[in-house]
């Protein structure tokens, strides 16, 4: 029921009020989760390590990633090349940093784009209701029915630039957040303070952007965490299938799929470093996402 509070308009929720409270609660929740959950802390520490390794590492550990040299190719790990060199003579440790940068950037960009778009789509559908909601959600259902790897290969066969790769991964990843946010919007839509906005003549987008989205931010953050992990895996798989990051650029996936062609030759240092880096990063994001989701559902139960 949209009944105005008896103590007058001064107590009506202001535009910034709800959003700020919601995000402040979120940060307290996030802090609680990391203080209580050891796995989440471990995951966060692993993510911080990976980010430092990939973005600060090259500043400390200088390598030549531009020139190839057959003389220096496939050197075993030793003092001058801590992880050896690859088949074109590039230092593997330096390449691991460079590739990780691409993996993390592509993962983050795709996850953020997908989640933002999906959240807006879901909020608009849930808030509008009726025919608009049905049509928008049937589009999501239809796209969800298509195995995402099939859609990725189809779209990936059309383009080859890095930006296009990010968009293609985002294009198949926005469906899950759209469904989650729509579900939450349905329950938020009926709350008094959201209805009050409409009563006071606030538009649809004002309600969605200022009130609905800030209150679903928990779901959105959890979703971004899982999406980054999934995007890194997807890009790695695409690299193996020949549609990922193209040389001279590299990501962990393309390094791994390049390395595994030497499986039978025993060049283990081409395979395990990028493979382990992928596993550690994906597991780390999953630890953090799991802990945040559990913390969030605990908060919802406590409500």
């Amino acid at each position, binding site marked *: 029921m949209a009944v105005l509070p008896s103590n007058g308009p001064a107590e009506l929720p202001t535009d910034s009020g709800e959003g700020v409270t919601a995000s402040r609660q979120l940060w307290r929740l996030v802090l609680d989760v990391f203080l209580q959950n050891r796995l989440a802390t471990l995951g966060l520490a692993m993510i911080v390590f990976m980010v430092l390794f990939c973005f600060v590492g090259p500043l400390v550990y200088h390598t030549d990633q531009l020139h190839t040299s057959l003389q220096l190719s496939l050197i075993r790990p030793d003092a001058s090349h801590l992880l050896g060199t690859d088949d074109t003579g590039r230092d593997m440790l330096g390449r691991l940093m460079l590739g990780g940068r691409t993996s993390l950037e592509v993962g983050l960009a795709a996850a953020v784009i997908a989640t933002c778009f999906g959240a807006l789509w879901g909020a608009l559908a849930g808030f509008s209701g009726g025919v608009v909601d049905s049509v928008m959600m*049937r*589009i999501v*259902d*239809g*796209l*969800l*029915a*298509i*195995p*995402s*790897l*099939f*859609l990725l*290969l*189809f779209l*990936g*066969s*059309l383009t080859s630039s890095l930006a296009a790769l990010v968009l293609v991964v985002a294009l198949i990843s926005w469906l899950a957040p759209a469904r989650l946010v729509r579900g939450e919007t349905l329950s938020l839509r009926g709350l008094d303070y959201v209805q009050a906005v409409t009563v006071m003549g606030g538009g649809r987008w004002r309600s969605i952007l200022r009130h609905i989205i800030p209150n679903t931010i928990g779901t959105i953050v959890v979703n971004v965490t899982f999406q980054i*992990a999934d995007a890194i*895996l997807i890009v*790695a*798989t695409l690299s*193996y*299938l*020949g*549609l990922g990051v193209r040389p001279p650029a590299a990501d962990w*996936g393309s390094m*791994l*799929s390049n390395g*595994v062609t030497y*499986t*039978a030759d025993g060049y283990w240092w081409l*395979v395990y470093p990028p*493979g382990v880096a*992928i*596993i*550690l990063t*994906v*597991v780390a994001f*999953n*630890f953090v996402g799991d802990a945040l989701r559990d913390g969030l559902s605990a908060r919802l139960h406590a409500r």
Partner: protein
Amino acid sequence: MTGYLIRRVGQAVLVIFMVTVIVFLLVRLLPGGPAEAILGRRATAAEKAAFNRLNGYNRPLLEQYVHYIGQLLRGNLGYSYKLSQSVTSLLGEALPKTILLVGLSTLLAALLAVPLGILQAVRRNRLIDYIFTGAAFIFYAMPSFWLGLVLIELFAINLGWLPSEAPQGSLSQVLAHPEGLVLPVATLALVTIAQFSRYMRSSMLEQLSQDYVRTARARGVPEWRVVMRHTLRNALVPVVTLLGLSLPWVLGGALVVESVFNFPGTGLLFWTAAQNQDYPVMLGLVLVAAVGTVVGSLLADLMYAALDPRVRYT
């Protein structure tokens, strides 16, 4: 139940309609349109115009769509100019093998993941739970192509127990060499177990925290009986639904596994088509996979409703 059945089937039909619209539009979104995609970039304008006229691509979109649906209903999924074969016959050759691969590995995964999930839930936060949880996280995070190649390195190259490549040829030829199926099925099953055992564990944990379990324990029902008789059936219901819904994900996994082991199924067909930019094959397969997914989730939902009466009334 009848009302729910009608509503749910109606929804599935609507989703299949959406899928056909999406797939139909995908061809039209191709750069240069279907003519350039199929004839190649070097085709002359006159050739493209003739191709468009022949296939009706110069007609209004709506008319094209009606024609497309008409063809689909007659079982015509398109024609691969690259392989000079109809998509239907290519699919008829490849699909049974993929069903075999996906069916065997899903069955194996379910048979192992259910007891594993129960074990983890009963022994939660003990060493054994941590070990299997850790393993599940790692197998989930490991790119599946790498997992397949590690298994090849171990069992085919180092130990020499199993062939590294899947058997070729028709379904009966594949079945005649079951040893070639072991590694592909194992790879897909390992990834799937990682996922399913997590579902099973959390579903069991949720049931074990219910009031009826406390009542049963208070009545002095032995713990194994509480687990096996009281909670297991309730915990299985949502997991069965998830099995139905995970079909698109498993099909994606099958595509990777098929390309690693050169397994002659739909995944390999799709991958080859993607490399050759053979759009009719890709779109035909996308459509069939999507319809299979919709039917799969419909069956899962109906089974859920049959097992759990609460669903029907919401």
